[in-house]
């Protein structure tokens, strides 16, 4: 049973990290295009990764 819940956790973690990256990275990308800047994509990606990791911690780490 524990093996199974591990398996589930792996895919959930992957999902969180990926969607954090994609969503906030995407927001950053479009903000970049809108404001004609070039650093907001990076900020967005980092924010998304941070958020994703935070969610993983909230769900599995505490």
């Amino acid at each position, binding site marked *: 049973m524990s093996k199974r819940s591990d398996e589930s956790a792996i895919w959930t973690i992957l*999902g*969180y990290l990926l969607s954090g990256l*994609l969503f906030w990275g995407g927001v950053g990308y479009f903000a970049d295009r809108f404001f004609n800047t070039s650093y907001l994509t990076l900020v967005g990606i980092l924010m998304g990764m941070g958020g994703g990791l935070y969610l993983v911690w909230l769900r599995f780490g505490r």
Partner: protein
Amino acid sequence: MRALSVFSAKGDEFVPPSSVDFVLPPIFENIPFITKPILLVLLSVLLVSLFFSLSARKAAVVPSKFQFAGELVYGFVRKDLGQEILGHDFKRFMPYLFSLFTFILTNNIFGIVPFLQFPSFSRISFAYVLGIITFGVFHYVGIRKQGIKKYVKDIMFMPGVPKPVYILLTPIEIATFLVVRPLTLSLRLFANMFAGHLLLMIFILGGEHLLQGAIAMKAVGFFAFGMGIALTFFEFLVQCLQAYIFTLLTALYIAGGLADEH
């Protein structure tokens, strides 16, 4: 189609297989929607239903070989993907999980069956449809079990976080549940089938081309052909694994919807 064109272009430059080779022409000229992948999907439905209804028709306590084979597959899905993941309530979902597994497995294995030799799911729309169905199933199950309000709230708001942080986290959670889950499910299946088929084409068509060349080329072509055969076995492994993973994740997502807390 492809092998013939390479053959006729003997001596010419080798054209490596690409994504163009996945777009197959309609079989009858005036009916554009009847293509090889469509027919393969229909064939798989026919095969799967025929096999399992025949194997279950004369079910006996002492099983025939046929019944034994059918029960082996069913038992595997039931125990490994149903019971262990979904717990005591698993029987409700067995029809879906079982048809999903056998359907994907059959279609994947078509990729290495001589003459058929095309994995249907290397056309992405088939994979998308399966992803959408699973998406519908696991959300429906979750909403039925917990009520729409609690279900949506559980997805959107992780408990124990200061309020402003929700601006950062809620979009990620929504994206995970609504976009990333079905999308990764479809893309994983599609990409594995697509890449596998492409790999086989490269080694086997390339090997064929080299075999028609000079004597040194023939030696390399022989090796490429051998690799093609080895990779065919490897592909078989990947095809079974992808069918398994798709069904496993479907079961896990359903289990997530059934669970009381998040």
